[in-house]
């Protein structure tokens, strides 16, 4: 499925020059959490790039997934200070709750669980992002509450 309308709107907003590529890719991710192959083709056409150039650029960036991700992307910080303060238990809690491993998406496509590099909350670790929202000072109990709340969201 291609997001032709979305991409056309993004092109209208950001233009057709190369400079527009990242904002457009980001716009697609904002809407769908990932960029499909047909999206990339569409973007390449609009910007007069080769599809491989779009693919090459997108795959450079951790937050521009080219694989389908769930509606809520959970990124748990794995950098040393978060690791020291119990990241492993946080990940375990989420894995048990969602019945997925790190790198996987729930069958209902609602959640993806990922690990990521430093989120910049080292003084309040462990930390995680759900989509763009940060959660800090996590404990297994706290993360349980947070995830439960998201599970109950429509």
């Amino acid at each position, binding site marked *: 499925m291609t997001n032709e309308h979305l991409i056309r709107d993004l092109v209208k907003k950001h233009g057709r020059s190369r*400079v527009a590529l990242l904002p457009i890719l980001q716009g697609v991710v904002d809407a769908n959490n990932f960029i499909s192959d047909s999206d990339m083709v569409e973007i390449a056409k609009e910007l007069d790039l080769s599809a491989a150039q779009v693919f090459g650029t997108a795959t450079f*960036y951790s937050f521009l997934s080219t694989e389908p991700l769930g509606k809520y992307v959970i990124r748990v910080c794995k950098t040393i200070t978060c*690791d020291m303060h119990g990241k492993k238990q946080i990940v375990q809690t989420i894995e048990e709750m969602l019945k997925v491993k790190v790198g996987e998406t729930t069958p209902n496509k609602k959640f993806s669980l990922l690990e990521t590099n430093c989120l*910049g909350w*080292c*003084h309040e670790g462990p930390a995680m992002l759900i989509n763009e929202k940060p959660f800090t000072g996590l404990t297994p109990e706290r993360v349980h509450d947070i995830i439960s709340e998201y599970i109950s969201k429509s």
Partner: protein
Amino acid sequence: MSESKLKRVDLIFGEYSNTKYKVLADTLKRRNEDILEDLMESGLKGRGGAGFPTAMKWKLAADAPSDTKYVICNADEGEPGTFKDREILSRVPRKVFSGMAICGKVIGAQKGYIYLRSEYKFLLPELTRELEMFHEHIGKMGFDFPIEIKLGSGAYICGEESALFESMEGFRGEPRNKPPYPTTHGFMGKPTVINNVETFVNVVMIMRLGPVQFKLLGTTDSRGSKVFSVSGDTPIPGIYELELGMPLDRFVEEFGDGDTKAVQVGGASGFCVPRKKFKDTIIGFEGVPTGGSMMLFNSSRSMYNVLHNYLDFFEEESCGQCTPCRVGCQQLRKGIVAVKKGDKKAGYLDQLLKLSESMKITAKCGLGQSVANSFSSIVNNFKEEMIY
């Protein structure tokens, strides 16, 4: 907390935040030469970690002949253990905008950009509101200087200035060959000043206090104060603004948990200082420089795990284009694993130390060059932990 031995400073987050751009308005009335002279006099060095004299950077860009120039604020804070830029941007964004506008005036730039890492995207609504107000204010001052926010997409390497330009231009964030430098060939090939978030704030402080006051803080080589991100095994993690040039033992006295065995100064790309060297280590450009990251480790921590974590990080965050960094990082990580497992003899660590030295002098950019900092300081100081 017992009597503080460290001089706490309150410049960056100080009262200015509520005034309505007074320093900016005053500075915009000054002559560019005078502004540059004050900056020169202040001895301000870039706060991102590399420590390039700010006045010189601005002067080079000011002298570069071009009708189009840019000012870029590097807010791609990704160094493990660093979170000061987020704090500055959320608490005193106006100081950042003011510093950028002053730079724009001095070098003759028409436009400013803030490259904000995607991990801080949640700051965007507030920053956008603040920017609207800023544009209103600066318009009233008769100086047109639009600032736009560009978002990153999750790549540590984009904090490297030329990689940041590539990313802003819509490419993979791969560092460029240098020379030429950004002051002549930066964003879109135009003369560009790119400074850390904190540097711009420091500029505003210098404009407010004057260089003489600013210089009273710190040491000859490290003027002024610095925002430190303190984390790890400390009872009081957080953001602290401290004078530069302090000895590490005093820092540990204040922030340690009484059992500190090592402090990682400057994040994963910085140096790991063991307990026995706390006393002789100065935090500043004359000693161990830092972009502000201070991670404390107590004796319960395995330094092998710490190093492994760093190397994982570098392996993933290397852009991958140059051989020493792309392959070197993989070799270092797999190498320490092999030694730990006994697949390689302890002597292999020496081979790896030599490799890290080669990476330091041959990698294309600061990322690959700085992997050796943590690698050699951890392996050399905690060799037994690497082996047993």
